[in-house]
């Protein structure tokens, strides 16, 4: 058994392999993880909206021992991750960390938000600092506005296509 505590270090090895195969391989994996995560979050979003997201990330905060503040109101939810245990473990690792480790997070959350009609603004801040800020809006205009202040804005499979209008 790879302990659940060590999942992120296993994840890191998977990312490195997939990155060696190409960007498409990495994105297909994120989409697969996104589908896996739907089991845990999709119904909460569809039935409770932002409150459902708050519920989901409250459990994550506790179970994954995150230093995370959650702010929710009628228009959006914000996740202020002050110390991300996932990146912290990937970096505190006898194996080499994958340089784009942070990208997976938007890689699975983004497609779920697209699917449920929400708009994710994921500011990773830095790929070598275990902190980030995510904001999720119902109103796309507010999301586009929030993107302007992001320091390291993350994308995900499908996001760029939606922005330039090349795909529905």
């Amino acid at each position, binding site marked *: 058994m790879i302990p659940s505590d060590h999942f992120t270090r296993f994840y890191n090895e*998977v990312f490195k392999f997939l990155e060696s195969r190409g960007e498409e391989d990495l994105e297909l994996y994120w989409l697969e993880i996104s589908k896996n995560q739907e089991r845990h979050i999709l119904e909460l979003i569809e039935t409770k909206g932002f409150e459902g997201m708050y519920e989901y990330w409250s459990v994550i905060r506790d179970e994954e021992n995150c230093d995370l503040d959650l702010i929710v109101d009628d228009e959006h939810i914000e996740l202020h991750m002050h110390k991300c245990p996932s990146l912290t473990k990937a970096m505190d690792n006898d194996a080499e960390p994958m340089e784009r480790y942070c990208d997976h997070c938007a890689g699975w959350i983004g497609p779920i938000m697209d699917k449920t009609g929400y708009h994710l603004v994921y500011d990773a801040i830095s790929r070598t600092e275990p902190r980030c800020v995510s904001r999720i809006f119902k109103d796309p205009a507010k999301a586009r506005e929030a993107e302007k202040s992001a320091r390291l804005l993350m994308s995900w499979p499908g996001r760029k296509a939606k922005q330039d209008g090349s795909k529905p």
Partner: protein
Amino acid sequence: MPRQQLEKSLRYQEDGNVHLDFHGAVNTTIDFIVERYGIEVLHEIFAKVGKDVYRDLRQHMLDGDPDEMVRHWRHFFDRENADYDIAVGEDEIVLTVRRCTAYHHVAKIAPAVSPYFCDQTSKVNEAIAEGSAYRIDTEITGPGACRQVIRRRA
């Protein structure tokens, strides 16, 4: 002084809560890798986990110290509240897992447990012990149950 305070920490000592749903993501990952790239690639990734991520455990094995592996097992099987015991004998060390938390959690939350789910154990164990005076053999004894045996190579 309590024994724990006298002992050196494990390389990846953990405290706090556990997030068992990660085992579901491992299950999904295993199926994804096998379907797209084949079982050999999955085993290569597990070998990297055993050799690179668990470099410290492997070094202990290379140094002729299998006790670190026992401490690792105790720490993480306790954290996940598995039903297990470890018998340390003169010729072998036997970990008997009667109820693997990872397997049973996946059985609860996922459509199916991957037929390759337990390869994470056998292949990581093999890689940790590779090149050392010991081998770690993993025998699956039932759904979510196994024996893992450390013994000197013949």
